[in-house]
């Protein structure tokens, strides 16, 4: 660890605002990106299952249950 304590870590030698702004936006984008990919996958699957509809009753599997 390059910092004496937590306060120094947060302060980043006076550049805390800039460093934490850059990192928080990057992490937020990363989370939004990965959860978005998973949401898309589930939505597509549900959509296709709805189209199948009557043909395969109970087509929902455990991973899709709420």
């Amino acid at each position, binding site marked *: 660890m390059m910092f004496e304590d937590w306060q120094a870590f947060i302060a980043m030698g*006076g550049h805390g605002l*800039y*460093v934490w702004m*850059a990192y928080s936006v*990057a992490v937020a984008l990363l989370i939004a990106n990965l959860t978005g990919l998973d949401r898309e996958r589930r939505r*597509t699957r549900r959509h*296709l299952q709805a*189209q199948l509809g009557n043909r395969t009753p109970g087509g929902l599997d455990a991973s899709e249950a709420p």
Partner: protein
Amino acid sequence: MTLKQFWHRLGSPKWFFHMSGPWQGAFAVLAVLLLLTGMTWGLAFAPPDYQQGNSFRIIYVHVPAAVLAQSVYLTLGVAGVLLLVWRMKMAQLVLENLVGFGAWMTALALFTGAVWGKPTWGTWWVFDGRTTSTLVLLFLYFGLYALRQAIPSREAAGRACALLAVVGVINIPVIKYSVEWWTTLHQGATFKLTEAPAMPASMWAPLLVNVLGAYCLFAANLIAKLRTAILRQEPGAAWVRDWAAGEVRP
């Protein structure tokens, strides 16, 4: 499997879907692990820069974002050639589904650059070679998006976007060499193929980890978006219905 067979199969959405299943999760997990490691390392354990102090730590998110912004565009350019010359189906899907990811990465590179520029250069923004050519890259992504929206025919839109993607590739070397052609504010490249980095390993090692993590994120996005697009393209195909019914894993 010979290279030629592999090439032909890569052009088949069905083959790609079945082959890529295990990979998308693996790349996503690897991306998260690498990026968390690199960011923690860069924030807390890398030494501060002797001139820039701690604001230099922004490099660990800025460079991976910028690398992806350009790599995604290059991928679109290659897909453009494959579509225009060989009418490859998968190339069309790449062109249709990767623009958003590239645009977001370019926006992140510009944002983290601005936030780094303020304490380092004294300004959020300056029209120097690197920043201006990266802004042009963002507009190229916007252009690809707008062009697709504007043309109703999928095939015509695909060809128009392919052409724009290919022509726009000329901006990539401009971004790369901008720091050598116009010496204004942006610093030079951290990693070069021909020489060792000017920074010590304790500084560039976490950056390397994050760049690798960024490429894993790219791979995860490419695979996931292609798989979703393939399913939507052929909702009536028997193998798609089997997958939706949970009869085929994954």
